[in-house]
């Protein structure tokens, strides 16, 4: 009797175990199949909206650019040395800095410094830039031989000489500074490029475009650290901006012109949208998205504007919300006034 009960119990046990294993196997495979299917759907979603799935690119250190306020070369040397020491002490990183000398004067002999600090001649601009470069070279020290400073020699389109000759002359000045850098032995770590704070509200598009073409005629490259005043924030078909400019005009002086590389002002959330649409205009109409150097903020000048971190997040997120403009950016910049920094 006991044996019969035992056999019956064993048989029942086997049946139960068989049922359980079969059910578990079925469920496991079903769950696995569903999991893979969901993952595949997610991957499709990633392609359409990469920014929503991938973590935002970490912001590089925001390099300090300056409104030059004095012809004093020692000040420039010290600022360059600070940047060099910073780059060397943070893992031999690269940096991109603009020294802004203000609007060019009419005879191309120099610029009128921001904040009404008077005229600075081309020779003085050369002296300030050379000393900034030398300071960087010294600041990186003996052991850092790989950090690289891209030094923008900046002007703007607010004053005089916004024309073909002005662009050509500015490129020539940048060329002279690069010759100084090379002859001084600093060119393994410093390269000078042009810079222009191009703002549609300040000057008309045809003359500013001529400046860009004049720069191209001499050669080299320049950074446009300007604005896209009044440009569309949601469309990218070449629409109108302020002062008679169009998205095409902003695109041209920022990217379409061979020497142009943009590191645009992102002072407000709307600026990130405007520049994303400029990039999208490039992608959809001109055959390639505008590749940004990074955002340029002015929080140090005006605390009501975006911080460096906010500018980065806004700009990166907007750019990467469109598959055609998705990109990473190498730099972040913040403008400071030389004497108050």
């Amino acid at each position: 009797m006991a044996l019969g009960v035992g056999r019956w119990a064993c048989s029942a046990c086997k049946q139960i175990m068989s049922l359980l294993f079969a059910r578990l196997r079925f469920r496991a495979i079903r769950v696995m199949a569903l999991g893979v299917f969901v993952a595949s759907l997610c991957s499709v979603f990633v392609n359409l909206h990469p920014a929503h799935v991938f973590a935002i690119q970490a912001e590089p250190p925001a390099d300090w650019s300056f409104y030059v306020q004095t012809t004093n070369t020692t000040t420039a040397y010290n600022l360059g040395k600070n940047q060099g020491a910073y780059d060397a002490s943070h893992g031999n990183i690269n940096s991109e800095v603009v020294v802004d000398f203000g609007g060019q004067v009419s005879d191309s002999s120099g610029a009128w410094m921001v904040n009404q600090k008077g005229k600075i001649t081309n020779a003085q601009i050369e002296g300030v830039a050379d000393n900034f470069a030398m300071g960087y070279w010294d600041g990186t020290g003996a052991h850092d031989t790989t950090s690289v400073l891209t030094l923008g020699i900046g002007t703007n389109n607010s004053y005089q000489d916004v024309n073909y000759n002005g662009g050509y002359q500015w490129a020539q000045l940048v060329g002279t500074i690069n010759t100084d850098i090379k002859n001084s032995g600093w060119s393994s770590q410093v390269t000078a490029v042009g810079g222009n704070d191009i703002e549609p509200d300040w000057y008309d598009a045809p003359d500013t475009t001529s400046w860009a073409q004049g720069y191209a005629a001499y050669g080299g490259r320049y950074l446009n650290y300007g604005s896209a005043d009044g440009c569309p924030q949601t469309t990218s078909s070449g629409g109108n901006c302020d002062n008679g400019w169009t998205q095409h005009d902003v695109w041209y002086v920022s990217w379409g012109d061979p020497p142009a590389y943009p590191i645009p002002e992102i002072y407000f959330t709307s600026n990130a949208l405007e520049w994303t649409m400029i990039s999208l205009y490039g992608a959809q109409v001109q055959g390639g998205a505008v590749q940004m150097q990074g955002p340029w903020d002015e929080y140090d000048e005006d605390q009501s504007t975006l911080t460096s971190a906010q500018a980065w997040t806004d700009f990166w997120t907007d750019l990467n919300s469109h598959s055609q403009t998705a990109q990473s950016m190498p730099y972040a910049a913040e403008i400071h006034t030389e004497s108050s920094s």
Partner: protein
Amino acid sequence: MGTQPQPKVRFPKLSGSSARVLLLIAAVGIALLTGGVLVSRHVILAGGAYSNYPPAKATEMAREQQAMATARANSNKPSKATEIPSSPQPTATFQAGIVNAHQAPFPPSVFFVNNSYAGPVNGVWEVVYAGRVTNQDGSAGQGGLRIYNMVTDTNLGQFLAPAGTSALTITAVNGVVMQLRSDSGQLLTFNLQTHQYGQG
């Protein structure tokens, strides 16, 4: 009263068409997942190099990097670079007067500058920017002045002209009284000591 029959436990067998369908779903999923990841990485990585640059820009960047590499190969960096003595520096001097330039240490999307004036007020050098504020929607706002300390580069304030006044331009400065004209032709004065507007 007989006992109600227990419902028979049912579960599908993993053989035949069901298994094949599940395997097919899994295979398609894996293929999509692999493809998706590859494409996504391409999207992210492509932005980090010069592969998305037009040929002229990519060539210029390559030329620049090559020149730098050559310089690095030939560089023998001393423990401290030899400093080139700077040329004698002129003493910084401010120049008083009106400058017809739009440039300022703030963007035109916040305050559009028509022109500016620099000069001492009670022994302190100030720069006064004349123009108008820019509204949130980008349209031209009320006329006004922004004043900065030229030595410390600090903002001393924004002084809006009476309501309805359009963008201002500085036409003359007599002592501490600034003569102003709005875009619509209205004439005003501004006292640089009291920061008060008056009729021109």
